[in-house]
């Protein structure tokens, strides 16, 4: 027994973590690179999970119960949300390092908004909130970065649904010089003290869930398109007496094709 009792025991000091030497803050480019790689690393296992899930679905298609299908939907939603986080990180990397570029091409703006709204309700639905999409018949020709602009609209719609009480609405209005995409909710609105830092990044918002990165990214993307993102009062009936919801308006310059 004695010969075998030389077991390895952790030294008493091993119970507390060893001190980690603090490093100096990295320069913004390195940080952006880091976020870019992180996003990339996240996407490849996500791709595997998506593919695996899809194979499972195909193989067991005939034997799936309603419960299985719900589990599938929940898994899909989870994957999409992780994908969004990866997107946010790479966008953030590009915006923070100054390497952000638009990849523009001719598009149908109406179609873009419609798909962005559909994507928002697929990723973060809320049963209690009716999401209305009130768009004029298209097409409406524009030149834009589909992926980024669509992302900006999705983020604002998700934000509206999250803060709505019963209803959120997306509309599009044309003026001679602008296309105005209005995303309204019947929630409690944005408190005045939050309005100044609404689009700034890395600011903690006490009563909000999430990092609050969506609005800031949407803002930058819209500005890159020579447009602006403004906060107005919602025209929806208030969800609770005495409150006025928020209306985020994306204004994009359009060229009259006459």
């Amino acid at each position, binding site marked *: 027994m004695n010969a075998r009792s030389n077991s390895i025991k952790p030294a008493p000091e091993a119970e507390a973590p060893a001190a980690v030497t603090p490093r100096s803050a990295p320069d913004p480019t390195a940080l952006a690179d880091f976020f870019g790689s992180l996003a990339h690393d996240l996407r490849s296992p996500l791709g595997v999970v998506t593919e695996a899930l899809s194979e499972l679905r195909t193989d067991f298609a005939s034997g799936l119960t309603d419960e299985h299908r719900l589990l599938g939907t*929940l898994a899909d939603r989870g994957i999409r949300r992780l994908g969004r986080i990866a997107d946010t990180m790479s966008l953030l990397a590009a915006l923070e390092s100054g390497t952000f570029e638009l990849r523009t091409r001719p598009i149908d703006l109406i179609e873009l908004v419609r798909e962005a709204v559909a994507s928002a309700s697929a990723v973060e639905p809320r049963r*209690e909130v009716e999401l209305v999409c009130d768009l004029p018949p298209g097409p409406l020709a524009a030149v834009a970065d589909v992926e980024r602009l669509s992302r900006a609209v999705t983020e604002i719609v998700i934000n509206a649904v999250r803060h709505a009480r019963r209803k959120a609405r997306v509309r599009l209005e044309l003026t001679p010089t602008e296309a105005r995409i209005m995303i309204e909710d019947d929630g409690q609105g944005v408190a005045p003290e939050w309005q100044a830092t609404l689009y700034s990044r890395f600011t903690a918002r006490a009563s909000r869930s999430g990092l609050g990165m969506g609005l800031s990214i949407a803002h930058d993307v819209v500005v890159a398109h020579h447009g602006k993102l403004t906060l107005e009062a919602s025209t929806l009936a208030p969800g609770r007496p005495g409150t006025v919801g928020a209306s985020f308006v994306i204004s994009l310059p359009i060229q009259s094709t006459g």
Partner: protein
Amino acid sequence: MSGRVLVVDDDQSMCEMLELMLRRDSLEVEWRTSGLDALELVAERDFDVILTDLGMASLSGAELCERILGIRPDVPVIVVTGNASFDAAVASIRAGAYDFITKPVDAKLLSLVVGRALQHGQLRQEVKRLRRAVVDTQRFGRLLGESQAMKRVFDLVTRVADSDASVLIMGESGTGKELIARAVHAQSSRRDGPFLAVNCAAMPGALLESELFGHTRGAFTDAKAARTGLFEQASGGTLFLDEIGELPIEMQPKLLRALQERTVRPIGGNVEVSFDARIVTATNRDLEAEVDEKRFREDLYYRINVVRVDAPALRERGGDVLLLAQHFVERFAARSNKAVRGIHAAAAEKLVNYDWPGNVRELENCIERAVALLRFDEVTVDDLPEKIRQYRADRLVFATDDLAEVLTIDELERRYIQRVLTLVGGNKSRAADLLGLDRRTLYRRLDRYGGVRERAK
């Protein structure tokens, strides 16, 4: 499990996932993605357990928790938090949460935590109901009970009360045999007559004889005056002979004769005096065994045992434990001038699980002590004696009338093995033989049940 659960989380996926998990435990589930909606729902409908996220957009979980408890103070709230930090736990408990679990939520842990909360809530409701029941229950004399076992006693007492048949009450110490005797008297047509009680174990034979039958002046050295015996004094009423099993053997023929003839002859007298008292006896001994051992006369046994009433042990009385506990809390609180709301659910659980070898008397002492020690306005686990706090139920209940006492097959098996091991002094080979298992199977079961082996040592 059964019960209705409300899930509140601003992430609908989380709501749907929790709903799916909880439905697998056969629970009814509602969910809301906003704290305000959840509050409205809580105001209009009853829920047995509420699960809420801690960091939500419209209303924080801690705030929601406080407001829910403002509307429904009895509902256990479980906080689901994405943050496994100590601070988050403290924040939720401070807001009045019953428990908390961290995300990602493990299905087994969820089931366990919700199950415990349900049980806690049910006990809390039960304690509340009992507070009303103590007031509302039709008292049977001073006997209090809603259990089937006690209902049988009440029924029997009602049926025999009006006859003059001798009643023998058998039961463990502390089960309230004298209260049953008093109930027989109170229900009978003799209720306006005297009820006299004498403890046969409390005095030597000669003294007992003089007590029961009386004596004439000068019958013995100290007999300065004549004295009427209890049989005569109880005329028109009931004579209760407690601990009849302790009656000295030389007294037994005299008692038998008195019961047969319905007359007594006082010591030193030469005249038979007739009496008209109903005889009720009680014992905690197994009188039939005493008869077999020739320590108790068989003819006397049959004479006193015309109707036999079994006073049930407290552990056979299911929910009566809490009913009585509440009754005692109120009595001792009033006596000591303390404002006591009742019994905390966790303490109630301990009381229900304990096996009460000293029966109602032990419960009464326990509550008297608890009320004396009370620090808050409720009896808590800390106010209970150590042995009740530490007690682990190993009782074998096969033939129960009480749904709350139904055991799972596994638990019954665990307790049975434990019992057999105790009987054979921890000898596992012998236990395996008796149980008809081979040794290895027994070891496997012991491993499965964990604690059994430890306790059997």
